[in-house]
């Protein structure tokens, strides 16, 4: 096997040692404040039956070594602030630094969630303003900021759907999801107590209308849809879809993961959607944090509004010409109730509100324009000879903010799979696209450049892909064995699932036990 010519990733350089393995009895970073009250023996305060006998085996490490440990770990991560991250469906756009600064203001970061409303007017006003801005972008009048991420918003949406049908005395049993849907959609359907019914995709990449007509009936509670969908295509039949769904008496749910394509261009409410979720960690620039935190506010139409989660931020006009007063409405008799503690991921709201303030209405529109321009440019360049024959576009139409290539050609022509191409791209210091999603496309690569990438980065990615393919034409083993320059190389995922080691073994513990019923899963899928 030929070795890599690419020297890319700069690993942290230290061997893999956990913080527990750095621990030595007697070391510490924490010094307790002085005990300024009588030192009552603990036995008198807490009965022995409820007391802990032995301290938990947390690490014992000094501050300088804790800092080094985590800093060295950080160097084994690839991140958006370092390089191109075209992870489809995830909207890896730049996270403005000013957002971190304003979120850290003590008035935000040090505000207790049970602070009385009259002492939290700034926070409630911020939430109210953010809600209004999101409502305008969605084209739907009412917002709840409460859900903690996209899939939490989806759950909210289906519980609202359930409450809506129950309220009309017409409970229903099924929810429709296209076969292109993200996995959270069908998983949410089950959690909300509904049966999943899959709707097919037409040859043009949109919803198969005939299939939808067959399946939308009196038992249908909702259709969950992403538009543009997970293929990056805007469904041209959206008005007809809305008509079919509404004629069946069902609600139409908008999975807002792809909203970045259409801000100020087309609004889900105007398309006929009843309920929309936003991923503030995608469209509205909350940093992804290595897998959260995010937030998944929802916007809804008038008929869904009575059921929104508690509490709701309300604006009260004192009526004497003075500024409005904000409060949390906890009553809401028809509400589905809470979805979590307190009022939501406020720190995320601050960042997303700051982002909206920075861009303004025109800036949001510009962001979507640029996201779509970047995606179409990258799609055109990846269709060039030397690439396009190996990675054909799955649906040859103008795309929105992302697009799907199929690795079928590369597999056939070059003997390398999408996974191999993704792994070899790691050596070129770019994050690979989302792979093996959507499921509809064989050997899928879902590519979303976002608006914050300059043309040169896109060109650089094209050259990286071209180099990987040219190299594979000469010797496919290189890609099959990739990556080479990363802190670790391909990892044994099947073994990890068969003999799960999910924590540092306690001191003196036996090595992991029997293999379980491990199933091979595809690395890197979303």
């Amino acid at each position, binding site marked *: 096997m030929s070795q890599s010519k690419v020297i890319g990733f700069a690993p942290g350089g230290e061997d893999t040692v956990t913080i527990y393995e750095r621990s030595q009895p007697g070391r510490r*970073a924490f010094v307790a404040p002085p005990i300024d*009250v009588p030192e009552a023996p603990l036995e008198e305060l807490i009965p022995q039956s409820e007391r802990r006998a032995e301290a938990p085996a*947390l690490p014992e490490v000094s501050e300088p070594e804790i800092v080094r440990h*985590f800093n060295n770990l950080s160097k084994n*991560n690839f991140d958006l602030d*370092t390089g191109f*991250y075209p992870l489809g469906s995830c909207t890896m756009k730049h996270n403005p630094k000013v957002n971190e600064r304003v979120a850290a203001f003590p008035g935000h970061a040090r505000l207790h969630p049970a602070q009385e409303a009259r002492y939290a007017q700034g926070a409630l006003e911020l939430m109210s303003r953010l809600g209004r801005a999101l409502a305008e972008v969605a084209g739907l009048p009412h917002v709840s900021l409460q859900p903690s991420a996209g899939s939490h918003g989806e759950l909210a949406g289906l519980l609202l759907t359930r409450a809506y049908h129950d309220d009309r005395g017409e409970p229903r049993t099924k929810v429709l999801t296209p076969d292109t849907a993200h996995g959270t959609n069908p998983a949410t359907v089950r959690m909300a107590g509904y049966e999943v019914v899959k709707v097919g995709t037409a040859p043009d990449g949109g919803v198969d209308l005939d299939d939808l007509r067959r399946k939308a009936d009196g038992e249908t509670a909702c259709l969950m849809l992403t538009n543009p969908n997970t293929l990056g295509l805007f469904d041209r039949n959206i008005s007809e879809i809305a008509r079919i769904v509404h004629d069946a008496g069902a609600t139409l749910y908008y999975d807002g993961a792809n909203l970045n394509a259409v801000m100020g261009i087309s609004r889900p409410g105007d398309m006929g959607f009843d309920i929309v979720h936003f991923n503030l960690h995608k469209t509205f620039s909350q940093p992804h944090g290595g897998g959260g935190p995010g937030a998944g506010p929802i916007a809804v139409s008038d008929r869904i509004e009575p059921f929104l989660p508690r509490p709701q931020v309300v604006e009260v006009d004192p009526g004497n010409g003075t500024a409005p007063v904000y409060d949390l409405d906890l009553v809401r008799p028809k509400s589905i109730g809470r979805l979590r503690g307190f009022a939501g991921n406020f720190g995320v709201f601050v960042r997303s509100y700051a982002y909206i303030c920075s861009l303004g209405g025109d800036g949001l529109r510009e962001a979507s324009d640029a996201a779509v*321009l*970047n995606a179409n440019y990258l799609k055109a360049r990846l269709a060039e000879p030397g690439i396009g024959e190996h990675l054909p576009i799955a649906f040859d139409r103008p795309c929105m903010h992302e697009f799907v290539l199929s690795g079928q050609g590369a597999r056939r022509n070059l003997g390398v799979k999408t996974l191999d191409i993704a792994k070899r791209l790691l050596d070129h210091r770019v994050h690979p696209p989302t792979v093996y999603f959507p499921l509809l496309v064989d050997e899928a690569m879902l590519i979303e450049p976002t608006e914050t990438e300059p043309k040169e980065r896109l060109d650089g990615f094209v050259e990286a892909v071209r180099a990987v393919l040219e190299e594979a034409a000469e010797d496919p083993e290189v890609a099959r064995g990739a990556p080479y320059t990363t802190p670790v190389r391909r990892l044994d995922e099947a073994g990890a699932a068969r003999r799960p080691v999910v924590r540092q073994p306690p001191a003196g513990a036996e090595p992991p036990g029997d293999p379980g019923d491990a199933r091979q899963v595809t690395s890197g899928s979303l």
Partner: protein
Amino acid sequence: MSRYTSITDSDRRAMLETIGAGSLEEVFADIPAEVRLDRDLELPPGMSELEVTEHLSALATRNRSADEEVTFVGAGMYDHYVPALVDSITQRSEFLTPYTPYQPEISQGGLQVMFEFQTAVSELTGLPVANASLYEGPSSVASAGYLAKLENGRGKLVASRGLHPHSRETLSTYARGFGSRVEETPLDERGATDLEALAAAIDDDTSAVFLQQPNFLGTVEEIGPLVEAAKRTGALCVCAVDPLTLGILKPPGEYGVDVAVGEGQTLGNRLDFGGPSFGFYAAAERYLRKMPGRIAGETVDVDGKRGFVLTLQTREQHIRREKATHNICTSQALNALAGMVYLAWLGRRGIVELGELMARRTDYAREALGLEAINPGPVVREFAVRVPDLDRLMESAREDGVNPGYRLGQDYPEYPDGLLVAITERRTRADIDRLARHAAAVRDEVPA
């Protein structure tokens, strides 16, 4: 105006030419006219960074933060000290700006943090397996209810009123979806779960029983008999815990609970008006392939080098779709990192020392206030009292820059005059004495 993009006019021309389109309009041709927005968004124009900072600062100053008063408010989130090293690590781009570690070769930092975090949660709770975070406390409680539904299909969830009111409500919200109902059981005259009432509510259709330690009033519950009652009919036992008390309180695993969950804010996370923080979820081994959330596992690479991957993904939505055991995708990785850094900082002895400090100050505060205790038994970080004239106490203390605590009446009609007082390492004896002076004023002036 978007200052985060970099497409110049000449870039645009070149790019459109490559695309083969005369204008961007052509690219948007798939969006039918009837769903196009034919006006500008009605939002204010964009602002400079300086203006954004000033605007957000003006909003922030209209909040009274925990820096501006001496707060005894807790009720699920607490004013603990967050050491400087937490911010310095969580603000590193390498932790702040990647996403879920779908490509493990370039995500070993995040994956190892998850593994270390799972270990810490497992150690604290005394349960063998833990995930890498859920959203926050109450939704983690509700998620345990869903696990119970998948596990035994039964229809009733029994929840002690010692469980946080937000957890009980969130559990009910979720349960209406997955088809269970929640029955609440009362607290007794000492502010602890009424064992008899709990036992009476548990029947053959009980899917899970929910407890909290310490409970919402701060009472250290006698958990053993409650777990025993829960187990009699084969229901799952779920216990919500405050991780920062687990240096001194018995870990839930030692009582034989099936699932321990909780709110992670107390571990190195900001108050942030309620979030983001993280939820944690630990369980007995037999739930490993059913529990929700990301889980990192140790493995080796092709060269035999030690590494970490996301594992047991057949539980998750992206692999199993409608057969997934939960719908969660994005969770709270950065907040869990803060929690892990905090726990490393606190260390094995620190978590005990901090627990002891809280328990002693809490005991001192309850004595010092001299008000009638709603929960006179053991407490460690919070306690509830009856206040003869609660409005007056709130007013007089707040004028003096002291926030006396959380009004229990908003969630517990049975304690209309109840005040829940929280103690952390930030509340010194001097702070407590200051609150006690206000308490003395209302105590002495209102005839018993």
